[in-house]
């Protein structure tokens, strides 16, 4: 089994070291949890060292994430012993599927500065270099995009490592992957907002139109 390989064990060790060092270096860290597989695995790792860490979840609203999946996110966090702090923006309800760049304007520009004021000085983010060239560059340059320092414990992990950790540790994951994985590929299946115009240029809405057709015309 891959989870027994040295390669995987080394990555888990390195991730634990990154977490351990960050916990020593910073006074008040929090964890950013999207509900996707990467942040779920990262949460599993961080909870082993800091079970009472504040876990923040940004809710994209019912127009971008089906209610069933929003429920699963909360249930999965609860199953891992986490009481989520959920933040959102009323813009998602006001603008529906026309809500564009709300994350940037509401979370990055408003919420995160307010978290910094609350004293949070570090955030664990489930970013991986393998995901895109842009993320790879950002990670290698150690560039945080917010005023709070980011730590990426699973930065060097591959999709195989992520799934191996989920399977080996019986971590709950979203049913979304069971729908998208077989079609898109288990290496490429990602949990993102559905029918989001920001991803239209990648054809995501076409894929969502097939795999999440029930969610196409939500009102």
């Amino acid at each position, binding site marked *: 089994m891959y989870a027994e390989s040295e390669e995987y064990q080394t990555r888990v060790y390195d991730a634990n070291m990154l977490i351990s060092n960050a916990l020593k270096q910073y006074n008040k860290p929090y964890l950013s949890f999207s509900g996707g597989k990467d942040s779920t695995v990262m949460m599993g790792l961080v909870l082993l060292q800091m079970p009472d860490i504040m876990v923040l979840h940004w809710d994209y609203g019912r127009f971008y994430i089906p209610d069933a999946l929003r429920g699963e996110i909360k249930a999965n966090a609860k199953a891992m012993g986490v009481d989520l702090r959920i933040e959102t923006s009323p813009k998602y309800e006001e603008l529906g599927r026309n809500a564009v760049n709300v994350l940037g304007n509401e979370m990055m520009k408003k919420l995160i500065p307010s978290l910094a004021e609350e004293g949070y000085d570090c955030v664990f983010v489930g970013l991986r270099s393998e995901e895109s060239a842009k993320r790879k560059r950002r990670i290698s340059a150690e560039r945080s995009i917010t005023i709070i320092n980011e730590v990426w414990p699973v930065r060097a992990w591959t999709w195989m490592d992520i799934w191996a950790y989920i399977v080996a540790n019986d971590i709950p994951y979203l049913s979304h992957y069971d729908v998208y994985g077989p079609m898109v590929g288990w290496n490429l299946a990602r949990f993102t907002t559905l029918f989001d115009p920001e991803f239209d240029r*990648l054809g995501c809405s*076409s*894929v969502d139109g*097939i*795999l999440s*057709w*029930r969610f196409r015309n*939500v009102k």
Partner: protein
Amino acid sequence: MDAAEQAYFRNAFKSGVRHRGDMHYEPLRVTLHLGAPVALTHPWVYLDSIIKHLMLVNALEDNFYLLPAKFPMGKILGHGGSLPIKHTSGLAHSSASIFEIKKDGMETIYKRFEDRWAGGRRKINIGSGHFRNYMMSTVYVSAPTCEFYVFGDKKLLSKILDSLVGIGDNTRIGWGHVRSFEIEQQQEDWSIIKDGRAMRPIPKKMLTSSSEYLRMAWRSPYWAADSVDVCAPPGAEVELRG
């Protein structure tokens, strides 16, 4: 689209409509024999929308290519002729597509600039605009046939389907190529319901019960927001009103 443009297309459509007169509707099965996988953006393809599209192309001829994209022309043009598929209160007696799926998957289409498109220009912006490079994911199904159950006029359907080149998305680059088709008469009409199950989206107002309801398009154009209503989706256990 301004009033003058609307009048222009309305007149062009009226003078171009070739199919008039009484229809002889009967239960039919239309089988499309496919020569290439079908790229889809939705689980189903609808024959009534294909037929209306072909009728519009046939009637407008070259004017069709002047039409704005994503503009529901039906409101401006009206039916303008006889439809080869029976409609009841706007609902087409035509099932959603039934693919004999052998394989499904995802493919990525890359649009890349080629020198021959430059037309003598020395600088081309490939980051945005007409020549923008992009990669786009598309879901496809590989199926030898696609079937529809229809309550329609065999003769006119056959005439219109003669000009069908492909179905689904991106037919311009070869997806969904239709090699041939056949239309067979059926004993029973399965265009709307078969064995108590919906064969197409049916609006709630036409039903007394359904095992599932959700918002989806039930009439063409299926991409238009005002075609969406609460419906029983294909496959739901339903009972028709009246």
